[in-house]
């Protein structure tokens, strides 16, 4: 078995140390090592977006990032959005707009949407559709997801 590497990173604002095999993806470590199972695996090859996290300000598919690459980085996962005071506006909007059915893609969509709205708080429908094209949803036909992101823009103001 390959040797383990010590990695120090910041996850959802908390300094986090973990040991990872060089071959382990960030997704695998988040789920299997750190117990953060909110980040989902849908394809493990970067085509569905269910494992989207924010890495140093950019959205990435965590299945395509090696865990050891996150040394010194800041990672935001779905578990980092809600606070003790309540849900993030994007989470609130998804909930109220019925923007999920089975919910497996939902964490990825919410994190990807945060990646957009952090930079473009007034993104229009076309921009949102373009931004979220890397996230697959098979239940909703995207309609209510797009509406929820637009609603989240309003809730954030």
């Amino acid at each position: 078995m390959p040797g383990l590497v010590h990695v120090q990173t910041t996850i959802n604002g908390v300094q986090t140390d973990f040991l990872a095999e060089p071959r382990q993806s960030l997704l695998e470590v988040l789920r299997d090592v750190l117990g953060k199972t909110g980040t989902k695996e849908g394809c493990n090859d970067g085509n569905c977006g269910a494992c989207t996290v924010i890495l140093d300000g950019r959205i990435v598919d965590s299945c395509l990032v090696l865990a050891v690459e996150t040394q010194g980085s800041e990672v935001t996962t779905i578990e980092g959005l809600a606070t003790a005071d309540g849900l993030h506006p994007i989470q609130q909007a998804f909930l109220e707009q019925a923007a999920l059915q089975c919910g497996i893609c939902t964490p990825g969509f919410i994190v990807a949407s945060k990646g957009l709205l952090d930079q473009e708080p007034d993104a229009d429908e076309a921009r949102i559709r373009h931004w979220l094209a890397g996230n697959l949803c098979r239940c909703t036909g995207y309609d209510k997801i797009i509406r929820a992101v637009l609603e989240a823009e309003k809730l954030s103001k």
Partner: protein
Amino acid sequence: MTSNQVLSEVEYRVVGKRPVRPDGVDKVTGRAQYGADVYPAGLLHGKVLRSPHAHAKVVSIDTSQAEAYPGVTAVVTAADFPFASMSREELGGGYQRLKFATDLIMASDKVLFKGHPVAAVAAVNPHVAEEAVRLIRVEYQQLPAVINVQAAMEEKSELIHDDLYTSYLGENSEKPSNVAAHLYFDKGDIEQGFGEADVVVEREFHTEMVHQGYIEPQNSTAFWNTDGHLTIWCSTQGSFMIRNAVADVLQFPISKIKVVPTEIGGGFGGKISTYLEAPAALLSRKCGQPVKMVMTRTEVFEASGPAPGSWMKVKMGAAKDGLITAAHVTLAYEAGAYPGSPVMAGTSCALSCYDLQNGRVEGYDVLVNKPKTSAYRAPGSPQAAFAVESVLDEICEKLALDPLEVRIKNAAKEGTRRVEGPVARKIGLIECLDAAKSHDHLKKPVQGKNRGRGIACGFWMNRGFQSSVTMTVQYDGTISLLMGSVDIGGTRASIAQQTAETLGIAYEDVHPTVVDTDSIGFTFVTGGSRTSFATGLAAIGAAEDVKEQMVKRAAQIWDTPAENVEYADGVIRHRSDPELQMSFQALAKQLGSTGGGITGRNNIDPSGEGNGYAVHIVDVEVDQETGKVDILRYTAVQDAGKAVHPSYVEGQMQGGVVQGIGWALNEEYFFNDQGQMMNSSFLDYRMPTSLDLPMIDTVIVEVANPGHPYGVKGVGEVPIVPPMAAISNAIHQATGLRMASLPMSPGKILEALWENGKS
């Protein structure tokens, strides 16, 4: 941005409102536990060795190197399943059934599709298990792969099973065949009907195998305890179906198997069959620890249960005024490696939108060396609708009649007898067609070059079947509701709404929980558009049971016969003494001191389901340079019965439409001539993204189902039925092309355009 309409006949207090779903917060925060999120103590990880060949004899399997590999705890093959040590005599008439059931999970003498499991390994982590799987040596003797449905039906075809015969009208064929069944339904006299027609159109159609495309791969975690009890955690549409299927292939009592359904990341019919549960269980029994198995996306494509490809023929005749005089439909559906394509349902749906005097439907269940097909949203209906609704469009064109008016003229209605027998109860197709006719979409002409509009109808019968619910009155006046139906798309909400409505209490006071197979009565799958209807009825029945017990308790407290007490709108009152009345909550508080708790229960197997109908309208633009089809506007009209939670009904409609758009334009399994799937990733099997689509407009037409107190029908299936034909008909209007095969991908459109000399 466009809109969603609800055309309601009746309003209720809770049913028909749009509350936040009970499981919503867990699902937007990532706390909801799906199948792969199960991590019991001591967890090991399993991986499967799969056949690289579509058809081969298994000569030998050598697992010794894998077993000796550091970190490996157990290896299983078909030899570990009970079937391997049971004789043909012992099994008698059940031999073939158990062989097929076991072999699909773990191949014994032959592999019948690429991806067919051959062995499974448990190890300390998934990487070690993967490495060990590669150390298993299997010697194959390759056989010709049967991959074309029409070729498979020919007498000279290579046989996939040498002991499978065609069943036809109750008889078996003399010679073995790849055709497992030939279905035949007849009404009236089609020859006479075609004789009366002014125009007859006959066309053949092909469709390819497609996948449900749920985002969560199949998964299973099993723990075979030393006390002989087996616990399985998995995401499934039916925990009881998994329990029974595992009991069957392991020849193990159902009472010793507990299936704990987790949250499920999509199913659409694809998460009914068992794949990983029995191997995980056997691995766990060998090593004494829990074993988790999760499919990769490639495994999901190659070795779960996609929807069949098909060859179809439709002949339809109509009089000048548009009345359909006869129709003859032939459907040949791929079953995959074992019998059981959804062709039976296809034959039920093919002509069921229309009130025909003369009709014939034939179906063939055809084995090919491809994965065993499974249900996929209105299983069998979308393929048939593509063929039938395309031919009807051509008839309308030839007769220069409006395709919507022709559909209204021929529409099935209450009392219509379908070709395969059943007589329609109250149905809403005409109401849907009328709603489509008056919709803004049809009032605005489609304008612009290379643009066209198409319409099509769709049918799904909807289902009843067994459901169980228990509900306990908590002493704070709330309800704890337990059900066996797993929640794929908001059924906790829709069942809680029906419960609250019946009890006259607030929706927020009903707390639904999906429980395991030890904790509730038998409940059939979440599928077939049955859950809000059948489990809803079970909940209503359990709520009525609660009401009856609450009345008795109040009568006891007031020292009066129960017939003097009534329950209405959440209040229990004495019929003649206005002083004596208590709210549900007030009585709940007294239960503990007046004899103890109250639990309502109901186990049912209802008939009375209402058939589902849909009418879709689509505008497309066809790029003459690339052959790409863009969806400009889409409107789905559907008789949903009473929409319990309109937002989730709209979501079902929109999701079904978009799966249909994918099926129409992009999605297909590519097999090479060896029967190997060549596009088993989401990159190459291209499902629609948010960028490919407009908003999907919906119109919910509420024609109440008399078989349910609030008029609920099924919702989820029928919206996937019309899109392929609607889009094909729109492509015809845009380009003049009549597409006869799916998907209508850019390459195929371009070829057709070139052939027509139009570009």
